[in-house]
């Protein structure tokens, strides 16, 4: 049994405005997404900014209410649980946020931020709180002297690690890491990725790793989902994406990604055409406006996500 199963998840955000605060239009942030995550697996999610990655993450962890669809955690649907029923699941699922600065309460010492979670869930007896906090901090590699400091006294990488420590405090089985490294420099990015890697190896954590950086996903994940305008276009194992990728969008992403070696300079793939508005996603394949392989059928109908080989699904009529 897979740890997480997502079935046809849909999320529309109403956009209100005008005099009477009417719903003017809807943002189609996530449009019927299905996938599964096995225990101990890192599933990467890539896609450009605004394609619904964070929304997907928040839907899974119930920070947002889904418009439709289901999330099944360890065989139990959690989409409709109320707050108290949800509590046990809260301990098993955690989220690491994109912006290390925004993810810590500026008016709480980092030690307290972690301690609060521990004591709320009675993870350890009171007298052991302090030790547990220290343990967590050393796990993520934060200096123990700094427990009583406030977030603004830390660098971005350290804050992100504290965020991770807080997520780990409840001993979760599943972590959603929402672009944990996008806001960080390459050098710090490496530190954070290392921490996550160690945790995975040590505790067999399952992770949904959101990023828009293919290089990172490629390096870090077992499998990746390529999202575009709220749809999954391709799901591909990360052994050798360059070779395996089938979908024209995935290929374009790979082709447009500059290589950090001037000797391997190549003509970057440039996609013509405009990204459609998330308010009115096209009827057929969302990628039609920019796809080099577009046909009649693409306009008419959204291609289904078809499993080509084990663990590799593509939604495209043409490949």
């Amino acid at each position, binding site marked *: 049994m897979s740890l997480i199963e997502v079935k046809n998840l849909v999320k529309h955000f109403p956009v209100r*405005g*005008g*005099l009477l605060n009417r719903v*003017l239009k809807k943002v189609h942030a996530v449009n019927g997404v299905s996938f599964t995550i096995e225990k101990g697996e890192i599933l990467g999610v890539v896609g450009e900014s605004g394609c619904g990655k964070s929304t997907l993450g928040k839907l899974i962890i119930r920070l947002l209410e889904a418009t439709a669809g289901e999330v099944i955690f360890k065989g139990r649907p959690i989409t409709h649980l109320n707050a108290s029923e949800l509590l046990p699941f809260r301990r098993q699922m955690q989220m690491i946020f994109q912006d290390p600065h925004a993810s810590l309460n500026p008016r709480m010492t980092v030690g307290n931020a972690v301690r609060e979670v521990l004591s709320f869930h009675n993870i350890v007896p009171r007298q052991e709180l302090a030790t547990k906090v220290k343990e967590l901090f050393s796990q993520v590699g934060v200096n123990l002297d700094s427990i009583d400091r406030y977030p603004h006294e830390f660098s971005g990488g350290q804050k992100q690690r504290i965020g991770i420590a807080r997520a780990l405090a409840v001993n979760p089985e599943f972590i959603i890491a929402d672009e944990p490294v996008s806001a960080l420099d390459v050098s710090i990015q490496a530190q954070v990725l290392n921490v996550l890697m160690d945790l995975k190896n040590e505790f067999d954590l399952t992770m949904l790793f959101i990023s828009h950086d293919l290089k990172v996903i490629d390096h870090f994940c077992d499998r990746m989902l390529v999202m575009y305008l709220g749809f999954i276009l391709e799901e591909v194992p990360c052994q050798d994406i360059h070779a395996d990728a089938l979908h024209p969008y995935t290929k374009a992403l790979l082709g447009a990604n500059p290589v950090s070696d001037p000797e391997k300079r190549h003509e970057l793939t440039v996609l013509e055409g405009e990204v459609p508005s998330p308010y009115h996603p096209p009827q057929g394949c969302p990628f039609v406006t920019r796809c080099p392989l577009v046909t009649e059928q693409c306009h008419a109908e959204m291609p289904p996500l078809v499993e080509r080989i084990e663990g590799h699904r593509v939604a495209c009529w043409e490949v």
Partner: protein
Amino acid sequence: MAIVLLVMLLLRVRDPVPGMMGKQATVEDIANKREELGLNRPRYVQYFTLLQQMVTFDFSQELWTQPGMTVGELLRKSVPISLLLTLPALFLTTVISVCIGMISAYARGRLLDKILVFFAVLGMSISFLVYIIFGQYFGSYQLGRLVGQPVFSIHGYEPGLQNWAYYMLLPVLISVIVSMGYNTRFYRAVMVEETTQDYITTAWSKGASTSKIMFVHMLRNAMIPIITRIMITLPLLVTGSILLERFFGIPGMGDALLSAISNNDFPVIEVFSSIFAGLFICSIILTDVLYAVFDPRVRLQ
């Protein structure tokens, strides 16, 4: 319309009738009066009658304290007078404080900025009342004597635009001085916000001149908060300024309202607060419309 209800409830704490009837009234007289004014009907009936009157723009209720005068007449008379006082005051305040705010924001951190802000704060720290008392004594009385002929009126009002400066200028100036502090600081904050925007830097990078930046780029963008602020005060224009009108004998709405409150003249207060609430709603709508005019982002589809 809840406003009306609220006002009504607050008003009903007191029974107005005995006070109106004078010392010699009998219990029976009072009951009669009550009946005549409709006060003996259940509250909700009174409320809905009032609502109905408001919706049909029926202002023909008679004032309780001024028999023979309808609320409509009172409003027709007082509101324009109040507007003559409040509109120029609003206009002057806005223009002056936007300019000062802009200069001050532009000179942020420098001495000029500090001086301007200090004066704004200084002006705000003295009671309105003191301004009025001193303004009236020195501004109209002593100044008139110094010059040898009256410059500003001490008290009273006559219609006619040619008389405006004589009767209204001093009160207008006082209210400008009083409200200048808050406004200057507000507009300064708005402008400071603007100066730090990226598109202002972009404009600089295109080689735009200081005046272009200030009056084209910054002002246009700052229009939204400016409009919001003006719109918030818009309904207040018709209420006039209670204190100024009292002291300078300007028979505007503020004065009428205060008398109405102290004399328990319910129709005036109720009708006026409904109208005010109506205006309030209008001003919200107007704000939205103006937003759309000045900010293409919110332009309605």
